[in-house]
C-alpha cells in the first residue's frame, strides 16, 4: 500500500509543492483527495530531493494546505486502451463523460508516447481525396501527413474540417476508418457542431471525442492532445485502422502552456511562451505517420487560430516548421463569400509531390498545380497595378489575368459546403480556367503536357 501524504507546502495557481515525499519520480502521476470527497489528479513537473512540484490537471480550487491527501500512483500519465473507445466521449484527460461507464482494458499506455524511429517510418504516398478542389488540386492531403489549417476567429475552419471528414470518409468504403477528435479550450457550440456533423454523416460510431471546453481547467488542456494521439496510435498501429486526428484549437493549447510556464516562474522566450514551445509542439505533431509493414496510419488535421491573423506569430510560425505544409484561410476571400476561403499562395502540402501524378492522380497534376500557383501570383501583381493606375490602363495580358483571378476564386477555390468534386473534375476545371490565358503565359508546364491538355477558351463574340 502506498503512502498517503496529508497536507501541502504551497499552492500557486495550478502548481502545488509537496515536501517530504519519498521515492517519487519525475513525470509521475499523483492523486489528490480533497476533504475526503473530491478527487483530482496531478503530475510531478519538477522534483528536488524530497520536494515535488505538482501540476494539478483539474485546477486547484477547493484545495487548501490542510485538507488534501496526496497519493503517488507509481506510474506516469497512462490511459487504458480498447477498440471500444470509438463512439465514446471523454474529458480532456481521457475519463469517460458520456455515462456509458469506464473503459475496461488491461492495456495501458504512457500518454507521452515515444518518438517513431525514422528508419521504421514509411514515406506517405497515398493521397486522401477530400472533394475540395483547392485542397485536392493544389495542397493535396496525404495519408500519414500532418496538415494544419491556419485560420482566424470568425473564419469557417470548423466547417472546412467537417467537410473534409465527411467527404474523405464517405469516399472510403472500408470499415477501418476512424476519427479521433480532440478539443482544447473550444466553445461549447464548436464541440456541439462537430458532434452533430459526425452524427449527420453517419460516422459517429467511428469517432472518439476528447473534450476540454473553454471553461474546463487550463492545465487539463496540456494533456488532451497527448491522450488523443495515444488512442490514435493504438488504433492505427495495433488495430490497423486509418485514423484522422482533428486537433482544435492548437492556439489554446500553446496558451495553456504559457500560462503554466509563467506560474512555474520559467524564463520566457518569444511573446512570453516558454523556450520549449517548439519541442512540445513537435512531440504532438510528429505523432503522425505510417509504420513500415503495419496496415494503418495517423493523419493529423490540427486547426489553429492565428492571433490577429498574424502568420508570423510564434504558434503558427513554429507549427509551420514542424508540419508538412499548411492550409491558410483568408479573411478577404471570406468577405467575398467565397467558401472555403483558402488563400492558396501561402498554402502548401509538402508531401503532395510524391503522392500525385501518374499512377496516383493524373500525369498533369504537378505541372497544372505549379501553373495555377504561378498564374494566381501574377493576378496579385495585376491587382496591385490596377489599384494604382486603374483597371482601364492595364495591358491586355494583365486584364486577362484579372479575369482569370476572378473566375479562379469563384469557380475553383469556391465550392458548395456539400459539393464533392472528383479529382478529374478538379483537374479539368483547372485546365478550363487556364484556357483563359494565352499559351505563351503557361511557362511552368512541360511542352508535351501543354499540347495534350491546354485548350484556349473560345472567345464569345
Amino acid at each position, binding site marked *: 500500500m502506498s503512502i498517503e501524504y496529508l497536507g501541502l507546502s504551497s499552492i500557486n495557481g495550478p502548481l502545488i509543492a509537496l515536501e517530504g515525499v519519498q*521515492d*517519487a*519520480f*519525475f*513525470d*509521475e502521476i499523483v492523486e489528490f483527495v480533497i476533504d475526503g470527497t473530491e478527487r483530482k489528479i496531478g503530475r510531478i513537473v*519538477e*522534483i*528536488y*530531493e524530497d520536494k515535488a512540484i505538482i501540476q494539478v490537471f483539474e485546477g486547484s480550487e477547493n484545495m487548501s494546505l490542510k485538507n488534501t491527501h496526496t497519493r503517488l500512483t507509481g506510474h*506516469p500519465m497512462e490511459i487504458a486502451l480498447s477498440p471500444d473507445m470509438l463512439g465514446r466521449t471523454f474529458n480532456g484527460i481521457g475519463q469517460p463523460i458520456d455515462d456509458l461507464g469506464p473503459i475496461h482494458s488491461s492495456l495501458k499506455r*504512457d500518454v507521452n508516447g*515515444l*518518438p*517513431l*524511429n*525514422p*528508419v*521504421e*517510418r514509411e*514515406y*506517405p504516398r497515398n493521397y486522401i481525396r477530400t472533394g475540395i478542389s483547392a485542397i485536392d488540386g493544389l495542397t493535396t492531403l496525404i495519408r500519414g501527413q500532418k496538415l494544419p489549417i491556419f485560420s482566424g476567429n470568425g473564419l469557417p475552419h470548423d466547417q472546412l474540417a467537417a467537410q473534409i471528414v465527411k467527404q474523405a470518409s464517405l469516399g472510403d468504403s472500408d470499415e477501418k476508418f476512424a476519427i479521433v477528435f480532440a478539443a482544447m479550450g473550444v466553445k461549447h457550440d464548436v464541440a456541439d457542431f462537430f458532434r452533430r456533423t459526425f452524427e449527420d454523416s453517419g460516422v459517429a460510431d467511428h469517432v472518439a471525442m476528447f473534450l476540454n471546453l473553454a471553461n474546463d481547467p487550463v492545465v487539463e488542456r496540456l494533456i488532451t492532445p497527448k491522450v488523443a494521439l495515444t488512442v490514435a496510435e493504438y488504433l492505427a498501429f495495433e488495430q490497423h485502422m486509418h485514423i484522422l486526428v482533428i486537433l482544435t484549437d492548437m492556439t489554446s493549447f500553446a496558451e495553456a502552456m504559457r500560462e503554466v510556464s509563467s506560474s512555474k516562474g520559467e524564463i520566457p*522566450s*518569444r511573446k512570453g511562451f516558454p*523556450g*520549449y514551445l*517548439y*519541442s512540445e509542439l*513537435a*512531440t504532438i*505533431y*510528429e*505523432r503522425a*505517420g505510417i509504420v513500415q509493414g503495419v496496415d494503418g496510419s495517423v493523419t493529423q488535421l490540427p486547426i489553429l487560430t492565428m492571433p490577429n491573423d498574424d*502568420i*508570423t506569430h*510564434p504558434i503558427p*510560425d513554429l507549427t*509551420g*516548421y*514542424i508540419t*508538412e*505544409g499548411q492550409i491558410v484561410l483568408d479573411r478577404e476571400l471570406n468577405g467575398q463569400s467565397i467558401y472555403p476561403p483558402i488563400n492558396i499562395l*501561402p498554402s502548401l502540402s*509538402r*508531401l503532395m509531390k*510524391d503522392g500525385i501524378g501518374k499512377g496516383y492522380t493524373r500525369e498533369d497534376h504537378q505541372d497544372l498545380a505549379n501553373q495555377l500557383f*504561378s498564374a494566381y*501570383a501574377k493576378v496579385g501583381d495585376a491587382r*496591385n*497595378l490596377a489599384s*494604382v*493606375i486603374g483597371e482601364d*490602363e492595364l*495591358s491586355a495580358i*494583365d486584364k486577362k489575368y484579372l479575369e482569370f483571378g476572378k473566375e479562379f476564386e469563384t469557380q475553383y477555390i469556391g465550392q458548395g459546403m456539400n459539393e464533392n468534386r472528383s479529382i478529374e473534375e478538379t483537374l479539368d476545371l483547372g485546365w478550363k480556367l487556364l484556357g483563359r490565358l494565352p499559351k505563351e503565359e503557361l*511557362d*511552368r508546364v*512541360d*511542352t508535351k503536357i501543354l499540347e495534350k491538355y491546354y485548350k484556349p477558351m473560345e472567345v464569345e463574340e
Partner: protein
Amino acid sequence: MLNTGTIYGINGPVIYLKGNTGFCMSEMVYVGKQKLVGEVIALDKDMTTVQVYEETTGLRPGEEVVATGSAVSVTLAPGILNNIFDGIERPLEKIAESGGAFITRGVSVDSLDRQKKWQTHITVAEGQFLHGGDIIAEVPETHAIMHKCMVPPDTEGTVVSVVSDGEYTIDEPLVTLELNNGNTKELTMTQHWPIRAARPTHHRFPASVPLITGQRIIDTMFPIAKGGTAAVPGGFGTGKTMTQHQIAKWSDADIIIYIGCGERGNEMTQVLEEFSHLTDPRNGKPLMDRTTLIANTSNMPVAAREASIYTGLTLAEYYRDMGYDVAIMADSTSRWAEALRELSGRLEEMPAEEGFPAYLASRLSAFYERAGMMHNLNGTDGSVTIIGAVSPQGGDFSEPVTQNTKRFVRCFWGLDKSLAYARHFPAIHWLTSYSEYLGDLAPWYQDHVSPKFVDYRNRLMALLNSESSLLEIVKLIGSDVLPDDQKLILEIARVIRLGFLQQNAFHKDDTCVSMEKQFLMMDTILYLYKQSRALVTMGHPMSVLKSENIFDRIISIKYDVPNDRLEMFTQYRRDIDAFYQRVLEKNA
C-alpha cells in the same frame, strides 16, 4: 575508479547532483538505473548540472549517476557511411532491431558494427616512424569510398609489428607502435574523438575550387567554394530542405553528411528512401554509399538535438583527414539554436536577444569556423564545406540566428517567400543573396569553364538589377509606356528568370546541369539580347520582336536540350540569327 554522484533534482532534460562530484566539464555520464546518456554542463562546489540526451520520465532523486571518464565523443571507423544515426551516433537501424518501431529509452547499442570483418590492406611496414594522422590501412568501406585508417592525431611512434592484409573487425589490432617513452600501443581501425573539439590539421588553404552543385543559381550566380560556408535562410515552405536535398544529391563532394536537426520524421525517411534509389552521376553507385545521415527529428530529445550538429561535424572532419572533400548539410541550424535556448532557459541563464543565450554568436562562429580547405597532418588535402539552413522566425531575416549566421558565413542564399508563392524554385532571391567567394573562384572558372564566364555572369546580374529598378516604375505607371529598350530589358530578364534561374528539381534533365551547359545557356541568352537590342536600336518595336516565339523557345532550352546533346546550342544560335533576319525583312 570512476566518479559517481546522486540525483538531487530533475527539471525536464536537466538534472542536478548535490555536492562536489569530481566530474569534468563536458564529461559523458550515465544517469539512473536505465543508464540514460547525459553530459555535464555546469560544475559548482555544491552542485553539478547534467543535461540528459533522453526523456527523463521515471527518474527519481537518489538514483546514481556514473561518470565515464571521457567527453561525449564519437566512434570513428569503417561503417559510418551508408548509415543513419541519431544525434549521439547511435545507429537507428540497430535501435529499431532491438526496440521496435518506437525509440525507447536507455537503449544501449554500439555505434558501429563490431562483428563485421572488413577487407583490410595494410600500408605501413615494420620500422617505419609514424606521426599522428598517418594512414596505416585502407579498407573499401563502400563501393565508392576507400576508408583510410589513421594513427590518432596525438600519437606517434615506430612500428614494431604489423598484421598481414586480410579481414579484420574494427577492434582487432592492426599495427603496434613503440612510443617515444618506450611503451607500446596497439592501433586498431577505431578512433574516438570528442565531438566539441575540432580535429587538428596542418594548415588551412584559401578557397580556390568551387563546389559544383549542378544548380544554376548557385554555380553561376552565387558559388560556394570547397571548404566554404553558406547559409540558406527562408521561412517555412520556401524550399530550404529541397535546396539542401538537391545539393546533397548532385554536388561533387566525395562525402555528404546530412544532419536532420529537429526536422520532420517523414523528411528523413524520404531522404533515406530517395538516396538509396538514386545513383551518383559520377560513378553510377548508389548515393547512400557516400552519405551518412544524422537524424534527430523534432520529437527526439532536445539535448541530443544540440549535440547532433557536432556529431556530424566530427564525422566530416574525420573523412576530411583522409583527404576527401566533405559537404555537411545542416537542416536546420535554427533548431539547434532553439535547443540551446531551451536548455539555457532550463538552466535559468540570463537571456539575451529574443531569449537566446548570450553565447549564441560565439557557438555559431565556432561551428562555422570548423569548415575549411585543409592540408592534413598526413599530407593529404581535404575540405569540409558547411551549408546550414536557417529557419528564421516568421521569415524575418533580422532575427538573431540569421543575423549572427550572416556574420560568419561567406555565402548567403536568401530564400524568398514571394518567389515560393509563385512556385519559382529554387526560391533563392538574386537581389538579397550574395557570395563572397566569387572573386576567389574567378580564376578557376576562367581556366575550367570559359574566360568569359565571370563577365557573362555579371552581365546577367546587371540585367536582373535593371529589371528590378524598372519594375518599380512599372508598378506606378504600367509597362506600356516604357521605351522599347527598357521593355527589352524586362523581356530578357524574364528569360533569365524563367529560363535560367528557375530550375525544376523533378525534371530528369533540369535537375542537375553541367557547368558547360550553364555557360552555353548564358551565352545563348546574351546573344539573343545582343541581337534584339540591335533590332530595337534600329527602331523595330518590341511588339514585333515579341510576336516571334523566340523568347519562349530560349526559356524552354532547359527542358528541350538534353544534357548530353549540347551541340544543339548551335541550332539555337542559328534560330536567333534567323529571327533577326525575319524581323529585318518584315519591316524593311
